[in-house]
């Protein structure tokens, strides 16, 4: 029953080096903009197959639109150490660190990974363009910062079978590649940097290669991955996986201090559940003084995971004769949270986790309501009418499989 129609069209948006493949595979013709690129939201007509491939098989995602910078020079390490909140001095060659970075008021600008590629050479990934901020702060240091976004193509291969697929294609086995480390491998005659990182909270890898190699790499992975059920995966599925993994998203769960119109919209890493990344023992880094204050005084807000309880939700819907209407996809509308009559927070993104069978969300809560187990009321629209239903603060990540960090 498969009647195939070929789509042709034109776009003024940018397309990634994988577009020749992804555009053919995108049966739903659903695209979203990501950093000015055309990016597939789902390849299949529905996104659940893609979601399950992340958790049960292997999902292949085109993550080229991520912003990437190469930072090198004798002061590269010092520079990054001053820039970000984590201690880059302890980041060994071959290691990767997830870290936020802040303005001098300690408000978060962006978050991403720092890859220590070789002696005095790093790659920084970010959600938004950061070139101006980087160069401004590099003044007075021996650092060369270059834009890598247009040079390097990147793919994420995520899911329990991802290691097996890579072992199939790489010149050398990657079994011993640890969580948040990277390695250089050849895939056929293509040099590829493989980092054991991802945005799904599962076993997974990200692959970085000069964009000329993009199609060859894609084809090789799809071919070798076929027996393992490799599935091209779009942003809808990714969004659900990252909520399950409690990974925050810029412009959804927080707003960059660089373009927040008002101070109220800015957040410090302590407010975003990233206090663990702020290394106050470091002598100096941008925002240190303010963050020290945050640490000492505590912050007004905390980002937490909440779970919307099933029974009350079911009761609420049963009253009007419906089963609970669950979101089929991750949502991103700010949703109020109450305690009694007082609004004590707001959820910024959430989804029904098909794996956990739980309705989960990421939420900003006033600190006094942020303790694990605290009950809050979640606003839900039941047939056009606003109701509230019970939820409670839970531990995150919601889903954290052991295979994420282990080696065989």
């Amino acid at each position, binding site marked *: 029953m498969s009647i195939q129609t070929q789509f042709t069209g034109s776009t003024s948006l940018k397309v990634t080096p994988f577009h020749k493949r992804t555009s053919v595979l995108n049966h739903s013709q659903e695209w979203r903009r990501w950093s000015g690129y055309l990016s597939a939201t789902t390849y299949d007509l529905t996104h659940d197959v893609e979601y399950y491939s992340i958790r049960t098989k292997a999902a292949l995602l085109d993550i080229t639109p991520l912003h990437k910078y190469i930072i090198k020079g004798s002061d590269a390490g010092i520079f990054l150490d001053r820039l970000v909140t984590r201690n880059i001095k302890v980041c060994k060659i071959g290691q990767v660190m997830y870290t936020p970075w802040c*303005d001098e008021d300690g408000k978060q600008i962006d978050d991403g990974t720092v890859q220590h590629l070789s002696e005095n050479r790093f790659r920084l990934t970010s959600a938004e363009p950061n070139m101006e*901020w980087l160069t*401004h*702060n590099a003044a007075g240091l021996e650092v060369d910062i270059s834009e890598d976004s247009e040079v390097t193509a990147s793919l994420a291969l995520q899911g329990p079978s991802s290691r097996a697929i890579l072992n199939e294609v790489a010149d050398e086995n990657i079994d011993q590649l640890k969580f948040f480390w990277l390695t250089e491998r050849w895939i056929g005659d293509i040099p590829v940097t493989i980092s054991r990182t991802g945005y799904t909270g599962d076993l997974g890898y990200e692959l970085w290669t000069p964009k000329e190699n993009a199609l060859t790499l894609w084809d090789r992975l799809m071919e070798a991955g076929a027996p393992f059920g490799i599935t091209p995966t779009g942003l809808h599925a990714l969004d659900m996986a990252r909520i399950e993994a409690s990974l925050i998203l810029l412009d959804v769960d927080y707003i960059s201090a660089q373009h927040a119109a008002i101070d109220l919209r800015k957040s410090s890493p302590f407010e975003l559940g990233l206090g663990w990344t702020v290394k106050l023992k470091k002598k100096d880094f941008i925002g240190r003084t303010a963050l020290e204050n945050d640490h000492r005084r505590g912050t007004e807000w905390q980002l937490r995971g909440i779970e919307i309880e099933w029974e009350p939700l079911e009761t609420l819907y049963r009253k009007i004769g419906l089963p609970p209407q669950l979101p089929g996809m991750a949502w991103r509308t700010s949703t109020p949270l109450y305690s009694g009559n007082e609004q004590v927070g707001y959820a910024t993104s959430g989804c029904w986790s098909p794996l956990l069978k739980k309705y989960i969300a990421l939420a900003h809560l006033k600190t006094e309501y942020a303790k694990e187990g605290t009950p809050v009321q979640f606003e839900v629209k039941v047939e056009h009418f606003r109701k509230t239903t019970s939820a409670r603060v839970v531990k995150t990540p919601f889903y954290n499989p052991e295979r994420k960090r282990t080696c065989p």
Partner: protein
Amino acid sequence: MKSFDTIVIGGGVNGLITAAFLGKAGNKVVLLEKGKSVGGLASTEQFAPGFHCNSVFDSVPWINSVLSTDLDLESHGFRFDDADTALSTPGTEGKTLSISPDTEATSRSIAQFSDRDAEKWPGFCEKISMLTDFLEPLYGITPPPIPELDLTSLLSMKPMIKPVRKHGRQNLVELLRILPMTMLELLDEWFESEPLRGTVAASGIRHLNQGPMAVGTVFNFLHHHVGSESICPVRFVSGGTGQLTDALQSAAETAGVEVRTKAEVSSVMLQNRQATGITLADGEQLTAGAVVSALDPQSTFHLVGTQNLTPRFRRRVKNIKFRGATARVHFGLKSLPQFDSLNEKALKSIVSISPSLSYVESSSDAAKYGQVSQEPWIEFSLPSLRESSFAPLGKHVLSATVQYVPYHLRGMDNATARQKLRNSVVAVLETHALGIADLIEHEQMLTPNDLESKFGLTEGNINHGEMMLDQFFFMRPTIDTAQYSTPIKNLYLCGPGTHPGGGLHGMNGLNAAQLVLKGN
């Protein structure tokens, strides 16, 4: 490691004043000067065997009287020489315009060109003096932090009440109206004769990268008139401008200040964002409870290290506008040149080549495109006529301030700019004193690039930052350092880059010293 209460970096007028006042207050102070002697822009030096010149400033229009009395500068050998001072401008048909403190005489001189203007002159003088009455007390206060004004900082504005009482609120509003005007607009409201318009307008462009048709030139004009009794004021220091800094050095040393010359600071030492001392170029380290820099803000923070500044502050420092456009020229002359229309009295004082406002404006055009003015505005004097010691017997020195020579040159190097500067200056002088070119025995050309390397002035800006409205009062040098303190604790600024700006009036040094004392 030697230890002091205060280290002052830079031995110009302001550095010396800060050091002297801190010394007088009982602080143990060392002043560090890079050059062979103190003086900075206010020095007198030998530029060729037997030929001396005032390096940058020939005239010192205003020194705050607090300085001369509190430091008793006269006893240290400082004296004004006010005989026959006037600003002269050769006009057409051999007529010379002469502006002097004598209002009546000036009116008579103006009448050669326009009776109407002559009649209006006294009113103009009164108006300007009224307007500067408002600025003078403003220059003596530390700018309040704006916009976060609190009661204390509002109270610090108290000295402003006096002029408001004296002249009325209406005139304060008049100041607000006139401050952002262009010299063209101001002069259009008053005068018609071109030599007068040109010469008064030139007072508004001094050391600016702008012509008299630019907004802010009236502000700069008023700035040069604060504290002075007359329009286009000329005042000489007896024995040369360097006598002022010599006297200040002597006063400072009397107050117990250790003055070290040939002591170049290579960096400011920091500990936890606090200045703890300095390191000299030879590696010696000195510690102190406070470091006060008389250098311009950019040079100062260069000593701190750009990487030690917070991103926001770094942006602010980077955005300070310097863009020097003034050149200095010194000629050693074989004999006294013969000027068509200028008598010896005029030459003994200061002469401005500013035949019309549009002449001055046109000379500013080239600078916008990185070129040297072909017909520049020139203000010159022959100091050897006043001070015979400046030149060998029978010979003379001609020193000129020339605008515009841009710092940012396009399509030429500094050597070419220097050559072009020489050509234009000589060509203009030739039209007033035929044959002067052949009298030149020695010469020194200082373009903004040269001023930068000679005096450590960023971009050769004599005012340590443009004197424009966007860099005035609570914005000078940046919105968060206008109170002489800096984001680096215990590091202070006291140079012309701070409020109230450039000149030899010494207010910056005085205000800063008071603040440092309060901080201690």
